[in-house]
């Protein structure tokens, strides 16, 4: 079966539109009902401190499965094949286990609720401000990616130009944020996960059936023009773009497996917060570990369809290929009306959830961490709420601009990883160093952050395409390998600069750092409680997860 790779249009029927509308009625309905009658039950789910581990684990993985991941991973699957699995088995699971076993007790014990707060207490206002500003910028850039992907769906549904689709999409998201508020956002986050799985599972099964199973897939892909074997995940040169296999393995393990993934999972407080509302430390630690089990298997319904789309001919023919459309091709050509509606609803929900999360994180940081703390202090709540509303609208408008920048990437995964390299990698370096080295000074805190980001940006510009049109190509780095090097550079530069600056400046006294630095925190604060069953022990559960992921890696190498 050859897929028509010309103009992509989804043929949605009335039933599909009804299913899509039904989804949003549900989600916005909850938001409205929750506001009209103050519902303690909704409050409980939003802010209660007593949720059991399986619910927080659920919220944890739902918050993580975003639209950018779905489109980006399927795009990478279509472009390079099995090496994409590294994003999960190397680039997520180990970091999630580290977060659960090592970092959670630290966060729980220190009482810190956000990364900017940690920066403030550990390093003082300068580092706090630098972190807040770079976080805000990152959110607007990522919101642009979500908006762009949302616009492509609107475009394939109605055929309007990308510009009009983008503006319509922006208006839709703004209304959703305003009408639904925080309550709708959290329910949407969990609901979209299930709807997406409900749509992707049959999609994957039918695509595999069409292409002739695993052997058929292998046969088809090997007959096509891939630079590196798409059915093998190691040494993953398709992912890194490195000529040398050894460097490729190092790039994946250090750049992706350590810096990017640890950087993401230890500092992404949107996720961490989902786990922190657990009823005790043991539950908080188990939530991410519980999340690793579905996380290990989700790639089978995200990456495999991308590979199948390539195998079924979605990207054959000459001209540039927009790999971001891999799943949309499959939806158009395999799904009947009905299931198509479910799939579209899931996609729209996922993009909206993603963009809403970016915009509201931007809102919170700009209103409270920047404006209230440094610019206009001591006004009443109403002032900051109003300011927040204006910030939301401005952020959405700027996101329209950044979405245009995102549109030049035929695989948004590369762009996203590059952004993580700019913002998460230095943050992680400063965070880890500050957590384990009590002598690190406040000055080193902010200079390390700035130097790390600058280092990553320089590598990005020097590469061939990490920054799209801005990259100059002085160095032969391309694709996602370039983003791994950016991340590695950010990490190393941050550490070096922090160490040097610490030599010339004054650290905070030990008394102020208790609970913020490992060596200054008494063991009792972090002691693991005795448990009744082995699966209630975070360390043992983490061990099981680790063994499973190693087995998966060995079977699918």
């Amino acid at each position: 079966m050859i897929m028509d790779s010309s103009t992509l249009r989804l043929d949605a029927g009335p039933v599909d539109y009804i299913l899509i509308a039904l989804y949003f009625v549900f989600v916005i309905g909850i938001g409205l009902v929750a506001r009209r009658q103050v519902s303690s039950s909704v409050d409980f789910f939003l802010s209660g401190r007593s949720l059991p581990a399986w619910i927080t684990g659920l919220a944890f993985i739902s918050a993580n499965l975003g639209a950018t991941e779905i489109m980006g991973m399927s795009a990478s699957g279509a472009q390079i094949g099995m090496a994409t699995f590294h994003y999960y088995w190397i680039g997520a699971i180990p970091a999630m286990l580290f977060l659960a076993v090592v970092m959670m007790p630290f966060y729980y014990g220190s009482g810190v609720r956000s990364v900017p707060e940690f920066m403030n207490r550990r390093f003082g206002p300068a580092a706090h401000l630098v972190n807040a500003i770079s976080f805000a910028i990152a959110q607007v850039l990522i919101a642009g990616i979500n908006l762009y992907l949302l616009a492509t769906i609107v475009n394939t549904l109605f055929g309007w130009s990308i510009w009009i689709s983008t503006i319509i999409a922006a208006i839709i998201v703004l209304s959703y944020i305003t009408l639904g508020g925080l309550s709708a956002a959290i329910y949407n986050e969990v609901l979209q996960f299930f709807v997406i799985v409900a749509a992707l599972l049959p999609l994957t099964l039918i695509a595999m059936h069409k292409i002739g199973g695993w052997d058929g897939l292998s046969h088809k892909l090997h007959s096509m023009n891939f630079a590196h074997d798409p059915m093998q995940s190691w040494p993953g040169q398709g992912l890194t773009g490195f000529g040398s296999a050894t460097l490729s393995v190092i790039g994946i393990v250090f750049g992706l497996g350590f810096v990017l993934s640890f950087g993401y999972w230890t500092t992404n407080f949107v996720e961490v917060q989902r786990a922190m509302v657990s009823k005790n430390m043991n539950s908080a630690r188990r939530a991410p570990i519980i999340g690793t089990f579905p996380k290990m298997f989700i790639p089978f319904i995200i990456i495999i369809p991308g590979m199948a789309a390539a195998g079924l001919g979605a990207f054959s023919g000459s001209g540039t290929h927009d790999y971001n459309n891999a799943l949309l091709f499959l939806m158009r050509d395999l799904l009947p009306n009905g299931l198509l509606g479910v799939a579209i609803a899931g996609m729209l929900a996922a993009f909206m959830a993603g963009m809403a999360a970016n915009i509201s994180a931007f809102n919170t940081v700009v209103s409270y961490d920047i404006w209230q703390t440094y610019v206009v202090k001591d006004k009443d709540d109403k002032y900051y709420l109003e300011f927040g509303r204006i910030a939301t609208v401005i952020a959405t408008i700027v996101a329209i601009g950044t979405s245009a920048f995102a549109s030049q990437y035929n695989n948004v995964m590369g762009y996203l990883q590059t952004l993580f390299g700019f913002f998460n990698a230095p943050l992680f370096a400063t965070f880890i160093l500050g957590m384990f080295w009590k002598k690190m000074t406040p000055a080193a805190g902010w200079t390390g952050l700035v130097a790390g980001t600058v280092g990553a940006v320089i590598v990005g510009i020097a590469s061939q395409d990490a920054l799209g049109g801005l990259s100059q190509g002085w160095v032969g780095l391309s694709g996602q390998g370039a983003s791994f090097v950016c991340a590695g550079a950010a990490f190393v530069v941050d550490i070096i600069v922090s160490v040097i600056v610490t030599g010339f400046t004054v650290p905070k006294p030990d008394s102020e750092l208790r609970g913020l630095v490992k060596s200054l925190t008494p063991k009792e604060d972090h002691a693991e409680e005795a448990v009744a069953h082995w699966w209630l022990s975070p360390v043992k559960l983490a061990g099981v997860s680790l063994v499973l992921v190693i087995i998966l890696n060995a079977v699918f190498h």
Partner: protein
Amino acid sequence: MTADTTTAPRKHTAGIFDVRNIIAVLMGIYGVVLIVMGVVNFSDTDKAKADDINLNLWSGLGMLIFAILMALWAYLRPIVVDEVQLERDKAAAEMERPSTSD
């Protein structure tokens, strides 16, 4: 003289706001719609697209079964909302950082 500040706990289940119930209702409706579509509207184009497999019917069945299991789980192991504890938690959180109401 200390006043006794403990009040009798007001507890109830989360009911319809339990996220599992919401998931169950939505997936249940989706499941039923898809099953109906699969039975009534299995067109020739659908057959060609999916090698004669009735995707709507099977997916719909799967979703419905999942919805029933979810609802059963929520019913057998409900989340109990303790209103008094909730008030205390909210007050403690308010003191640490003023919330953005929505």
